[in-house]
């Protein structure tokens, strides 16, 4: 069920990208798709009743110095979190790139409408 809702979020973004005419709206659609994908990746690694993959003082076994088995059996997956962490920052960089394209197009044509831009080109 949460997977389906997450997929619905992705589809809303895709609908926005393919249907809307406004350039900023298209950027917003791409942002929504990024959120949906990040959320889906994190959901894949979630365990019901899990703990965050950060070792604290209380998770260490005082006698041996190793990790307690309650942490090993309940920790959520750190791998998708690491991937998503890089992906979020990259999404900010690509957002800046897309917005600068929008700003330049607005400066040149005076509108965000992509159909107008296509008409003015030739």
């Amino acid at each position, binding site marked *: 069920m949460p997977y389906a809702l997450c997929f619905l979020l992705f589809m809303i973004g895709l609908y926005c990208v393919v249907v809307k005419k406004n350039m900023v709206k298209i950027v917003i659609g791409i942002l929504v798709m990024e959120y949906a994908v990040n959320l889906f990746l994190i959901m894949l690694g979630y365990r019901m009743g899990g703990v965050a993959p950060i070792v604290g003082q209380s998770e260490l076994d005082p006698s041996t110095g190793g990790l307690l088995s309650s942490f090993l059996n309940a920790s959520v997956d750190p791998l998708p979190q690491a991937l998503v962490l890089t992906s979020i920052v990259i999404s900010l960089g690509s957002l800046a790139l897309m917005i600068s394209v929008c700003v330049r197009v607005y400066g040149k044509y005076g509108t*965000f409408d992509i159909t107008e831009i296509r008409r003015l080109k030739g």
Partner: protein
Amino acid sequence: MAVFYILLLFVIIAAIIAVETKNLLSAVICVGAIGFGGSLMFLFLRAPDIAITQIVVEVMGLIILIRATISRDLTFISGDREFFGTVVSVVIVFVIFLAGIHVFDTLPDFGTAVFTQVPDTASQTYIEEGLERTGAANLVAAVILDFRAYDTLGEATVLFTAIIGAMVILRGKSRKLLEDPD
């Protein structure tokens, strides 16, 4: 977990409003609602690293988006693209949605992590030996900067390229070129 579902529905409603509203500034504010709601959801999914990063990145992204849309809102663009193309696109999106729903049947249920279903996965190794082999208590940092540092190097390169691209696009013709046209 009820709070999680409420947040997910909130995010979906915010996404629909962000897509459908006419005013660009309202759409940008709804993007902010999606981002902060998503940050709270990451907190519920036991990913505090992602929650912190998401919340600060969201603030910066909102500033950039508002910079692009403020005082440019005079051009209301109403309507969609051509009618036939719109209908076809919506139908295709809907068909993809219906087809994609069935893919999730092959995944384990929500709350059962995928890596626990298979023996001997990389994630299990990271959890078991991360502290011992890298010394970092934050296992996400251990994965990001030790086990998979090549990812981070690539990320730094991509960020570098994106910023250079943005600066090149934003800078106009330089003074020299304007003064003596070639």
